[in-house]
């Protein structure tokens, strides 16, 4: 559905009403994953491998089963092996079969009548491991002779002769690299590394499964996608999708990390075996050890530039590791690396290597922040060395309509230049800097997408409206969706209540990811509203005895149009709704679609930092985010995405990292030493929303959720490098690392 060219004036979209779930969330009443209970509920708990890599020789659960109060024990053999590679990986990540592939990999689970008994039962399970050599570093994993995490997993696209840990390879780009580099006045090549980081949602994974003797099951869980949970769990448990109903709880953050399953199939298996509802709540330690961090990366980037700032060629080699299972995130990184630039010759290569780390899960714009960090760092260094203004250079080389993108297609309308111009015009860009301070700039890019979406919209007889949608509200989407319904129907926002449905109440909805919800669910809501409007117009036409085509919908009411204009007083939505039983029955609109046309998204971040030359400590002084939202439906929550993404990126740049010991064990599985930014670390995060309508959405909406995490890594790295007077090439730029660089 294309942009409504006429729809430029909004009455409600663009305002900032209170979110419908606000009171529940400020009074503690909102129910999150761990807040669910069921009568007779058992506590589930999971035994995890203490080894980074080990063959599971045997598991003896008899002593655990003998403990009073233990109602079920499951291990890998309780799950039927999957034919499909993708499903098998998801399943084996939930419960190891032959090998434990990382520190924290699940090897057995129990359900017991109390947490204490469950804990005792875990202790009573005897696992005999044959410890194997491990590898946790991506560069080490691709070397000949590295311990092989999983054999035989390489895709057909991996060239022969590489380490068996390399599972995936890709190449993108165009043009003659040699000719491009020959035109450059300066070529800089640098190698970079980034640590794996965790999404760091505050709510640990939690679920409650209830499997009944007739083969039906209910599952309540915190997830970004109840329908995908149903797909995965029904396949893993071996049941029909129709027999499993998944109801999403409120979700305490996800950022991509709750787009898959970890404990849900285990809880279902335990419930099936015990005949009782089973609840599993992860500890924070488990969240860090066994749920999805990002890929870790090692990258080489080479870029050539002329003296006047024209990029002549760019090349990137991205080696990612998505942990112990194959992972395609390198595809996304390799496509995104140079997306902001109009370059004649560009080539990116991506690789994924297996390591003994937890399986990667998506994290906001997966794969892009790392690659763009490396590219934007080299661009910045070129600007420094050539004495060029970094913003002018970005503008000079910015991708625009007609640019052959680095990942293949020719761009149509994109908002990068306008975003850069906004940054250039902002007072932040020219504000003075003090000693030991530096300013960093970075562009960011993400694809965004749409996906499978269903919305049902019910006209209540009192003139109010219920909207039923299928994507968990992770950051105010009920408000945005209600706003779009209100806008389209022409009734007050307060008259609409939007709820998130279970898997039986709607058709399939893709996961809340790809920055898709406001865009796709919004689009489907508008279409569903139009469907309902068409039905209401038909009722009015019957009532008036005129043709349906002769009825318009204006300000929440049917009005006679054309030759009948003014003949009858308008019939409001409430009036039509009130008589709906007499005029043919209930009125509802719905819409089902696999949405395309999300449109790619660009952002520009500006940051000032100060580096303490004696300790390497970095203080973020000022931060401004510029981003095109297409149309900001609820600007508060658009700003919130921009601010939250920026801060996650700040954490990634400065302090967050998965730290593995020589023993392959995770050293920092807690919020004490996995250091996400705290309130006192940060300045205000200023936001500038641009609104360049997305032609793929009736209101011009563009997804905003993921792009904001892309630029901060390089923006901070560039600011720190300028402040410190030395180029930093490894994330996080923790104080010891900066101090070391300062001391040469």
């Amino acid at each position: 559905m294309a942009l409504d060219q006429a729809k430029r004036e909004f009455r409600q979209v663009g305002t900032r009403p209170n979110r419908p779930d606000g009171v529940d969330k400020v009074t503690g009443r909102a129910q999150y994953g761990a807040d669910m209970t069921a009568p007779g509920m058992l506590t589930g708990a999971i035994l995890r491998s203490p080894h980074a890599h080990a063959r599971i020789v045997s598991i003896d659960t008899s002593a655990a089963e003998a403990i009073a109060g233990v109602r079920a024990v499951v291990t890998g053999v309780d799950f039927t092996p999957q034919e499909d590679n993708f499903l098998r990986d998801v399943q084996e990540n939930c419960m190891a079969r032959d090998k434990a592939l990382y520190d924290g990999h699940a090897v057995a689970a129990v359900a017991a009548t109390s947490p204490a008994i469950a804990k005792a039962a875990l202790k009573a399970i005897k696992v005999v491991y044959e410890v194997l050599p491990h590898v946790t570093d991506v560069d080490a994993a691709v070397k000949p002779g590295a311990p092989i995490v999983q054999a035989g997993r390489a895709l057909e696209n991996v060239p022969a002769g590489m380490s068996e840990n390399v599972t995936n390879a890709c190449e993108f780009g165009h043009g003659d690299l040699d000719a491009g580099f020959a035109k450059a006045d300066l070529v800089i090549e640098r190698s970079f590394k980034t640590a794996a980081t965790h999404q760091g949602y505050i709510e640990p994974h939690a679920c409650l499964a209830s499997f009944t003797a007739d083969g039906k099951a209910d599952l309540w869980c915190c997830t970004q996608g109840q329908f995908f949970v149903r797909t995965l769990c029904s396949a893993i448990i071996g049941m029909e999708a129709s027999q499993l109903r998944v109801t999403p709880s409120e979700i305490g953050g996800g950022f991509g990390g709750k787009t898959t399953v970890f404990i849900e199939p285990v809880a279902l298996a335990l419930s099936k075996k015990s005949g009782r509802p089973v609840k599993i709540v992860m500890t924070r330690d488990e969240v860090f050890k066994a749920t999805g961090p990002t890929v870790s990366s090692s990258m080489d980037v080479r870029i050539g530039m002329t003296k006047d700032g024209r990029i002549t060629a760019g090349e990137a080699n991205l080696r990612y590791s998505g942990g112990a299972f194959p992972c395609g995130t390198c595809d996304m990184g390799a496509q995104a690396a140079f997306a902001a630039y109009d370059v004649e010759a560009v080539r990116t290569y991506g690789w994924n290597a297996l390591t003994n780390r937890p399986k990667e899960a998506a994290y906001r714009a997966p794969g892009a922040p790392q690659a763009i960090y490396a590219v934007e760092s080299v661009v910045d260094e070129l600007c420094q060395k050539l004495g060029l203004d970094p913003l002018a250079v970005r503008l000079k080389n910015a991708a625009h309509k007609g640019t052959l993108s680095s990942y293949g297609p020719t761009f149509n309308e994109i908002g990068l230049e306008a975003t850069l111009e906004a940054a250039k015009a902002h007072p932040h860009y020219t504000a003075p800097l003090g000693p030991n301070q530096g300013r960093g700039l970075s562009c960011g890019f993400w694809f965004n997408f749409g996906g499978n979406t269903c919305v049902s919209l019910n006209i209540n007889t009192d003139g109010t409206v219920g909207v039923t949608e299928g994507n968990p509200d992770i950051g105010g989407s009920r408000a945005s969706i209600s706003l779009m319904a209100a806008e389209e129907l022409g009734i007050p926002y307060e008259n609409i209540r939007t709820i998130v449905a279970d898997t039986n109440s709607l058709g399939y909805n893709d996961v809340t990811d790809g920055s898709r919800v406001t865009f796709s669910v919004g689009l489907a809501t508008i279409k569903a509203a139009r469907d309902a409007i068409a039905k209401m117009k038909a009722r009015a036409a019957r009532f008036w005895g005129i043709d349906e085509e002769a009825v318009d919908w204006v300000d929440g009411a049917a009005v006679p149009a054309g030759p009948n204009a003014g003949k009858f007083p308008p019939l409001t939505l409430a009036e039509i709704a009130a008589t709906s039983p007499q005029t043919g029955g209930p009125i509802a609109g719905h819409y089902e679609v696999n949405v395309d046309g999300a449109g790619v998204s660009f952002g520009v971040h500006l940051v000032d930092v100060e580096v303490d030359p004696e300790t390497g400590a970095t203080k973020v002084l000022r931060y401004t985010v510029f981003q095109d939202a297409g149309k900001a439906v609820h600007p508060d929550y658009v700003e919130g995405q921009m601010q939250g993404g920026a801060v996650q990126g700040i954490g990634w740049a400065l302090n967050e990292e998965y730290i593995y010991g020589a023993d392959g064990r995770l050293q920092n599985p807690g919020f004490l030493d996995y250091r996400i930014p705290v309130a006192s670390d940060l300045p205000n995060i200023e936001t500038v929303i641009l609104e360049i309508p997305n032609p793929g959405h009736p209101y011009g909406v563009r997804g905003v959720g993921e792009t904001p995490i892309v630029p901060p890594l390089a923006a901070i790295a560039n600011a720190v490098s300028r402040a410190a007077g030395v180029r930093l090439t490894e994330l996080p730029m923790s104080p010891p690392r900066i101090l070391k660089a300062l001391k040469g």
Partner: protein
Amino acid sequence: MVKVKLWGTLRHWTDGQAEVEVEAATFKEVLDRLSELYPGLAPQIRRGVSMSLDGVIYREAWFQEIKPGQEVVLMPYMQGG
């Protein structure tokens, strides 16, 4: 005939061609023809590919019509977070 641009990796199975021509009027037909003409592409197509049509990315819309002269680019299946 539709000209289909391929990303670098796929060129290993098209004798190095960065762009191939197939007889197709929809996204699905493009995929089917490519799998027939270049069997080496089939595994990737099975895993999922998206298509950019004049710069608009279609994740999996089989029936998406392709008009003469439109720019068709294959891309890996989109994923997000």
